[in-house]
């Protein structure tokens, strides 16, 4: 490396990784329920799909975290998305394919995927 542009490139490449450790109001949090019920229903592949998709699109300020049982075990895997300035959105019966769509539509383009939400499922 020699130039400032190279420095900036390294910064951009690493900034998301370190951003994980900073508390920030602007961040989007994707919370996957990974209690026994969630794991049994396939929460791990769903979570991995989210992580992969975020990585692939190099999204900043977007993190995947886990939580325990959300309480509606029959609708697992359940995923909650907290985007800045938005109410929490709860997606149910998630799959890795649905996860990709949620990232693209909701996280990237800000359009909630109504058909997967808990409101539609009930």
């Amino acid at each position, binding site marked *: *490396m*020699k*130039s*400032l542009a190279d*420095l900036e490139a*390294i*910064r951009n*490449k*690493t*900034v998301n*990784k*370190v*951003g*994980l*450790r*900073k*508390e920030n109001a602007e961040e989007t*949090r994707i919370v*996957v*329920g*990974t*209690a*026994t019920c969630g*794991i049994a229903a396939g929460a791990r592949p769903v*979570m*991995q799909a989210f*992580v*992969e998709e975020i*990585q*692939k699109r190099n999204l900043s300020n977007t*993190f*995947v*975290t*886990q*939580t*325990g049982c959300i309480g509606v075990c029959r609708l697992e895997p359940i995923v909650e998305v907290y985007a800045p300035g938005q109410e929490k959105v709860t997606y149910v019966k998630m799959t890795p394919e649905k996860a990709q769509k949620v990232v693209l539509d909701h996280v990237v383009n800000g359009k909630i995927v109504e058909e997967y939400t808990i409101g539609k499922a009930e």
Partner: protein
Amino acid sequence: MELVRSHVLVCGGTGCTSSGSKQIIEEFETQLKNFDIDKEVKVIQTGCFGFCAMGPIVIVYPEGSFYSMVQKEDVAEIVEQHLLKGKIVTRLLYKETVEEDNVKSLNEIDFYKKQHRVALRNCGVIDPENIDEYIACDGYKALGKALTEMTPQEVIQEVKDSGLRGRGGGGFPTGVKWDFASKSVNDQKYVLCNADEGDPGAFMDRSVLEGDPHSVIEAMAIAGYAIGANQGYIYVRAEYPIAVHRLQVAIDQAREYGILGKNIFETGFDFDLEIRLGAGAFVCGEETALMTSIEGRRGEPRPRPPFPAVKGLWDKPTILNNVETYANIPVILLNGAKEFAKLGTETSKGTKVFALGGKINNTGLVEVPMGTTLREVVYEIGGGIPNGKQFKAAQTGGPSGGCIPADLIDTPIDYDSLIKIGSMMGSGGLIVMDEDTCMVDIAKFFLEFTVDESCGKCVPCRIGTKRLLELLNKITDGTGTLEDIDEMETLCNTIKSSALCGLGQTAPNPVLSTLKYFRDEYVEHVVDKKCRAGVCKALLSYKIDADKCKGCTLCARQCPVGAISGKVKEAHIIDTTKCIKCGVCESTCKFGAISK
């Protein structure tokens, strides 16, 4: 592709390393493999989080869960419950973060709430052995800005405007120092970093070097550009093996990236750094002695002027700054002098890092804005005095500083307020003392240190401190006179005004300041032959309260010199001529019958 969703930060500072954080990291790696999540969870060794009393510390992100006093046996539980199943292990969280089942964020804990991290901004956040993480936190951006957008004079002006003063203790305006050196005309100049942190109880610089070594490297390169130097040396104690190692790793990485070396950022500016190890002599923290030591000679100071900015290392113009001072520089250039100067007081800008130690609950490293009161640091951040004891005094500045008594606890901590009350900022050691501390003994402790560390070059320091210590010994032995106290005062002032370097000139400070605020204790030792804190052994005598003694014989059996006698079920007595005042009897008595 790397699929990292969670970071486990384990403190790798000296404090946590000595309480086993290395084994914890290894255990995490093993357990993560066990549960087959080692690809998605990354374990990172960071620098000091500052909360050493609660170490080893582990923080799990993105949740920000703050696990304290983690043992190797706990790791499997954290991995299985938290990292695999997403259930935070409440049992291991720092207790203050858990409140009615709500987990509070790190910044809401009393210990961190009032802190403001500038110099320590990256400590405990980044992996110090990974230059990319430093760059991700805007690292080397300030150097880039200086080299491409600013003239050397503009850099100096910015540092001047920020009001930054030397954090090593002297408090000399950094920008002014740089200005002197930049105006000295010479073909070769040097930039030095003083990392010879020697005060008992101080570990701020070590933590910066261990947690964020690149910030010091970046600042030294900036300083080199500002004054026109292309070579720097970091003088660091060999007793800081972790700091030395990380510094070397950081220098190697910076060279590999071309941030050190020739033609940095294609601007034609050359700068390189080398580490010089100090053997641990306290006097080598004095600037002229430090330079003599780098030159390969015996570390002894020389008279000033000429000041280093004119004639320093190998007689070339040199600037020497402390580690913490450097750690502030990139922030100043990046955010501007104005932003930096928003924190602090009129004459002391920015923040100061303190190593909090002694009789205090939250031992550790804290960074507060200048002007924060001692009360806030001791009671709000430090969590107060253990075992419900009374705050008696705090020592700032180590063996060069002085004490602040309880009635001055609301003094704002800044350079000038501390000088006014007879203490000094010092490099940042802050030792808290409670009612069980004898002030004469404390003065003696610090003086023993300076007597030991005096290089012997000048008479006032070599012989004066020795005579001073003898007088102090007389007082703690109970053979002192009131004239001795006056004599001590005269001697202190003589040493202060005639010693060659800072070590000697400040050596009498602990004596002078304890005399100023606790003279009655000195008089008590001399006249009443009494040490109210029960520390000075020669003035103690243990006695047994016949009413409380049950005659259990336990103390008699424990006494190492057979000084206690008495029959079973009858009150015992201590033969004070035999007693060596070890205190074993007092601590073994189950009835509280033995006292000093």
